[in-house]
């Protein structure tokens, strides 16, 4: 529990899925970034961060995603972010200059197809 958010990590051979719930802001983004970064082994090819149940995401949370994406890219791993199009946090993500080339999908199902 990383108040006011929570996360569950599911690991499989080639993929780590991190499901975040609650709210991500300056108070917990740092801890979340470390926790998620530590969950990724060298073997996985991608990290899926599911933001489907995240009600709030501020620029510190978005910076966390950028940072994870950069670290993964350095190791030839990739980050897939799940944000349903109806989610209000997409408004902040779009405003932040989230690069269109970064994979962003509608659902966890789509991410793990």
């Amino acid at each position, binding site marked *: *529990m990383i*108040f*006011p*958010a*929570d996360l569950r990590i599911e690991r499989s051979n080639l993929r780590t899925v991190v499901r975040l719930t*609650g*709210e991500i*802001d*300056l*108070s917990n983004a740092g801890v979340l970034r470390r926790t998620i970064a530590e969950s990724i082994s060298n073997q996985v090819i991608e990290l899926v961060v599911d933001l489907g149940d995240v009600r*709030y995401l*501020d*620029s*510190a949370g*978005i*910076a966390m995603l*950028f*940072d994870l994406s950069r670290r993964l890219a350095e190791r030839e791993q990739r980050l897939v972010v799940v944000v349903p199009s109806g989610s*209000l*946090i997409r*408004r*902040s993500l*779009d*405003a*932040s*200059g989230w690069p269109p080339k970064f994979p962003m999908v509608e659902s966890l199902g789509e991410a793990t197809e």
Partner: protein
Amino acid sequence: MIDRLARIKPRGSQPGPEIDLASAAFEHLERLQSVTDSALASLSVDQLLEELLVRVREALSADTAAILLLDTRKAELVARAAKGIEEEVERGVRIPLGRGFAGTIAATGQPVFIPDVDHSMVLNPILREKGIRSLLGVPLVAQGTTLGVLHVGTLVPRHFTAEDTALLQLVGDRVALAIHAGLYERERAVARKLQHSLLPETLPSPPGLRLAARYRPARGGEVGGDWYDAFVLPSGSVAVAIGDVVGRGLGAASSMGKLRNALRAYALEVPSPSDVLDRLDRLIQILDPGEMATALYGVIDPVHLTFRFACAAHVPPVVHEPDGPTRVRTVDVGPPLGAMAAATFPENVEQLHAGTTLILCTDGLIERRRQSIDEGLQRLCDVSRVRLAAEERCDHIIKLLAPDDEGDDDVALMVIEVLPDQGDRLAVSLPADVGQLVVLRRILERWLAERCVEPTVVHDVVAASGEAAANAIEHAYGPAGGVLQVTAEWAATGIVLTVRDFGHWRVRRVPDRGRGIPIMQALTDGMRIAQSDAGTSVELRWRLGPEE
């Protein structure tokens, strides 16, 4: 007394002449005085036991004296203090209840005299090793309960008289009283301490709500199993719980502690109050069968002001509305926790409003002899029909319904007050701390909900002001922190919100940040940053209205 004593045959084998009878009487009186000396009253329990053993051994010219206490859980007697056979305590001798010399005394509650000890009858190896020849023992009884055994022994065969037995019993009674008072006081002190440590030291102060609570022990300071709890959930919702474990004293206090912690753990895992009580119920049935408790657990959404709760045979909430009736909430209830298999705890939803006060209590507050619970609840409604803030309301209710040292039962009371809406102009001051960001969001969300602002705009207002506040927290103040001021004004045509700090901005050190300002620009219809020596203010604007 002397006359009567003089007629009793004195100790010793030779019946003496008149003069001896008189001196024997004085001697006896002296013995009595030695064990009833008022100076003994100032001693601690341990010192008193030691001293009484010394004196009774002397008074009865015995070689050994010992006190064994009953361990009721194990049905055994355990040596507590001894003179002449100190090994008994050191070796922690244990005698099964009902067996042997001491075990028989404790089981029957009658004195036993063994003139010539047959060692097959005596279970205590130390008595055998010492070669004790005669034994006299009496039960230690206080308030009808046998607490243990006091016995004396001699190394030469000895005939103990009825008078000796009476003297030993007198000492025994004194020992029993001291032990009872000591055990009782110690247990009560531990229970009080435990109870105190298990109740929350401070209640949370979530935005828009004010909480206050009281716990009052029963008459004589005895604690029971009543408890209350309040904490903020990760969602920002506020969890409140109140309950009553059946029983009193140490056992009830420790059960209460277990339940309270289990409830906290479940509350963090499952959002539904019904499910939380359901799990708590199963936990008791599996791990503490026989335990029973009533409880009410609920979650207050600070934005939409709903109170979702479930109730396990607990006292229903009383709802006070400033401009309406003060009423007892009708509740769909489940059975007490731990009472029956496959119980369910229906969910109840109460819509709160600005100014509503919820009053939660345990039955100690409303129960009176020869009066129904309904009458008690009615009385609670009557005394609650006042305009008072949460803390003062608690004091008022306790003063009128549960004055100190008057109840047979302990009392827990929790008052939750929904603070009035701030109106179209909002003004909030918060410590400039990252933990306050979630608080600010809840304040803004409720303010916007009261003004029926649509969800996208709510998001944009909350997110943009969150960025402004986070910037101020990160850059305006040093580690000592400072204050963040948020003011907002709503009109049908738009919203203007200003986030102010009173610090000097440091140059940004982390180059990767700086997404805050583009986000604010994108989510608002206008933004202005003004910096001066006095601090920084960020003004954010949104247009509202039909043209949008």
